């Protein structure tokens, strides 16, 4: 399985995992296990990959319990906004059809190799939020040799769990129902990602920072700028559980204008 960095969602026990795999055989083996686990748990399972077939059928699967989709479905159905609402409907449909929840395993490699972080970031943030708010377990798979290493680390930062052949990120960033939750270390290697994630928040926002172990001055400046610009638009920003070092350093950054 490899190293695991966990950002377990304690509220529902569901997870949004990023998994780095080696080759197709590796991928389909995991898909088979994932599907069987989902079937055994009573969930509806959706697999999304370049090929619609690749793993053996699950044992004891009920009719319409396992759905196989192609990656082109994502690309054809309106990108992030289209898929966010579609996934919500899929969860609702699964529950209405008598299943316990929804599980999704997707080979994100074709998407990650053809899109840039700024296109993928909103999708992964929204997917993580959906996984935490609904009865969902999601695995985003990346072929480690095909995806740019820096992009892999950035994408991994947006997941609750990192498994397999993906470099462990320094921090994890999740979109929550009222803002953003950040854990780990923020420095120049992920400062741009942090800034982009802040920009994805809407309305009044809470930035939950109890899990932040380190924050460099550059990241503090990003946060300060976000607070000032956001409050200028009439939205409120609450910084929750700021690390003591940030509390001490923050006033020092006001400087002399």
């Amino acid at each position, binding site marked *: 399985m490899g190293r695991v960095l966990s950002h377990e969602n304690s509220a529902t026990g569901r997870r949004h995992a990023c998994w780095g795999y080696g080759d197709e055989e590796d991928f389909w083996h995991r898909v088979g296990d994932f599907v069987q686990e989902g079937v055994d748990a009573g969930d509806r399972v959706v697999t999304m990959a370049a090929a619609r077939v690749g793993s053996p059928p699950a044992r004891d699967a009920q009719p319409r319990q396992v759905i196989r989709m192609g990656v082109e479905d994502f690309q054809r159905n309106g990108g992030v906004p289209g898929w966010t609402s579609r996934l919500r409907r899929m969860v609702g449909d699964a529950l209405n059809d008598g299943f316990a929840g929804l599980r999704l395993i997707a080979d994100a490699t074709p998407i990650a190799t053809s899109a840039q972080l700024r296109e993928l970031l909103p999708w992964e943030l929204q997917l993580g939020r959906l996984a935490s708010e609904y009865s969902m377990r999601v695995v985003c798979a990346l072929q480690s040799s095909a995806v740019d290493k820096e992009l892999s680390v950035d994408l991994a930062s947006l997941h609750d769990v990192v498994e397999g052949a993906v470099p462990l990120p*320094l921090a994890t960033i999740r979109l929550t129902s009222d803002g953003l939750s950040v854990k780990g*270390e923020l*420095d*120049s290697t992920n400062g741009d990602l942090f800034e982009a994630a802040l920009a994805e928040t809407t309305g009044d926002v809470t930035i939950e920072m109890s899990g932040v172990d*380190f*924050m*460099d*001055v550059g990241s503090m400046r990003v946060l300060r700028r976000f607070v000032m610009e956001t409050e200028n638009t009439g939205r409120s920003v609450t910084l929750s559980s700021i*690390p*003591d*070092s940030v509390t*001490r*350093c923050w*006033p*020092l*950054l*006001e*400087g*002399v*204008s």
Partner: protein
Amino acid sequence: MSQGQDVGFIHSAVFVDSEEELCRSMAESAFEGLELSEEVIITADRDRRRRIASLLGDRTHQVRFDEADSRYSTPRSAMHGLVKMLGDRRRRVRSIGEVRPGKDRHSEWIRYEAALNEVLTGRPVTGVCFYDTRLLSDHTRASMEETHPCRGAISPWEGSDAFRPPQDVVTDFPPRRIHPRREPDLLLTDVSELRPVRAAAADMAPPSRADDAALVVHELTAMALADASVVPEIRMWSEPDRVAVQIISASDSFADPFAGLRPARPHGNNVALWIAGQLADDFAVARTGPVSEATVVFVEDR
């Protein structure tokens, strides 16, 4: 020199030899500031505040008083207090107080006064600095005269012939160096990654200061790496109640004569030296030829 809203920073020294003269002169300066609609702030201990208040009478409530012990505990804290007090005020501020250089830190206070001329250029601030000549050596008095362009508590401000540009003054009063007395407990060479360095600083610091040590060492190392691809050496000494870290830069990264006294510019790159000066219990920089070093010490909170 004339008083006016567009004059920028006015920095004036007043030399007195009695408490009575000092309080009278501070009150006189405060009255002028109030007449000019300036925001007047007097830094004084409790006894002196009472004496000055009796002179200000019913205008006392228009003056803000700051506690002298906390504001002037060290030059670095004085600079931070001043910057925080000024904030982004647009209205002219008149800051009145007595600086006591003392025997141990007089060169640091001289550097502080010189730094004010650099840091507050163009700001709408009148700084009236009082010195009790009974507590000053001739040498310190002469140095304080060199760091204040003006003399007197009220306008018209008398120009001082003794004034020297701040960069010249600090050359005569270089920052002291911190010399650990033994070999380092940890020596890192050819450093190019930040994460292991900040982790090491946190590990070797007393628990109550681990976060500050990690942040400051990270920022100083990042500053050195901005000028060169590697940092030649980072040395760390650990004691039960403190940690000392010395970062040797391959260039003159740390060679700022006002290191630790110059507040961070909003988009500038001197923030590492500023926060080192504010967060560390001790901080010194030095330059030797083409290289420079920064040393910070963090002591356990008690």
